[in-house]
């Protein structure tokens, strides 16, 4: 698989480094000679200096043989141009663009950019999700923080509602320590059915917490 990275700054450096380490055949296009030299020295990747929105520069970077082009410049218009030139002129099957204005995300898709990623939108989604995460109150971390004990509220639409515990396949390093229903505390048994409004005491290792939460509440952890 051959990948062309066109961009600048830190994001270009880290992606070039990551792809090179994984042994991906990567070509990098950086805007200036200085940046190109520096990137090539630090990542070992083949780096070209030039304006990636210029069809000749993409051609020189081997666009005809590329499987994917990533456009990571700070201006939306440049990233759109790179993707359109790659897709239309050089038939690159997959084009990925970084979008600054979230409103442009949909437009890019209409203009046949395979994937448009808006960092602004992703970050605001994460913040909104976290705000809506009232059902989970992390109570404490134990064992140098590698294990957490959380209180999880089951909402009506949670996938675990109505299930007997034995049907619930929690990951290996997660277990339910107790169920608080009204003002009673129940010891979980295989035949216990979960109900909306139950508060579950979840004990989980860090690696299993996310899977367990998703299984119980249906929501992505953040």
């Amino acid at each position, binding site marked *: 698989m051959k990948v062309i990275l066109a961009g600048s700054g830190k994001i270009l450096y880290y992606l070039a480094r990551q792809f090179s380490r994984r042994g991906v055949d990567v070509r990098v296009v950086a805007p200036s000679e200085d940046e190109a030299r520096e990137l090539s020295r630090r990542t070992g990747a083949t780096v070209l200096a030039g304006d990636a929105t210029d069809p000749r520069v993409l051609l020189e970077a081997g666009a005809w043989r590329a499987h994917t082009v990533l456009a990571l410049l700070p*201006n939306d*218009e440049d990233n759109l141009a790179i993707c359109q030139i790659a897709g239309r002129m050089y038939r690159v099957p997959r084009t990925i663009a970084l979008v600054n204005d979230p409103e442009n995300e949909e437009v890019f898709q209409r203009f046949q950019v395979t994937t448009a990623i808006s960092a602004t939108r992703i970050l605001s989604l994460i913040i909104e999700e976290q705000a809506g995460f009232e059902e989970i109150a992390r109570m404490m971390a134990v064992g140098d923080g590698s294990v957490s004990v959380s209180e999880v509220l089951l909402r009506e639409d949670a996938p675990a509602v109505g299930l007997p515990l034995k049907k619930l396949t929690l990951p290996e390093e997660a277990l339910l320590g107790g169920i608080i229903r009204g003002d009673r505390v129940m010891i979980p048994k295989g035949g216990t059915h979960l109900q909306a409004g139950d508060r579950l005491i979840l004990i989980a290792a860090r690696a299993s917490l996310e899977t367990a939460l998703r299984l119980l509440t249906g929501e992505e952890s953040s």
Partner: protein
Amino acid sequence: MTKKGSSSVVIVGCGRLGALLAGELSREGARVVVVDRVEAAFAQLDAGFSGFRVTGDAVEQRVLHLANLERADCLMATTEKDTVNLMVAQVAKTVFAVPRVLARVYDPAREEMYRTLGVETISPTRLSAGEFMRRFAGEERRS
């Protein structure tokens, strides 16, 4: 455009070309809105200009809404940057359904491809080259 008098035109980029077009269209009675990222650029507009000015980056749809693009008969993208002109032209066509869209594109290598995307382009490079060639041929005939 035959009935310039009643038409409404949005011009993106208030450089020498944009300002010149804005003045001429204004004098012909068209309703003109000029958009530029930099407020100081509007100083280039001449006294004959009677339209509106919108400060903002036309690559943002929000700015194009402010310029009332959905009601325009024509958009002219005249900034110094090809990629801006080409993106704005495509957005005007597909999102705002503007009937006539014209974009200045300096690089003839890019122009070709955008024509296949249905963007009407004007290349100063190509126009000047044509003019040079035409005059050169004229000289040859004269001598």
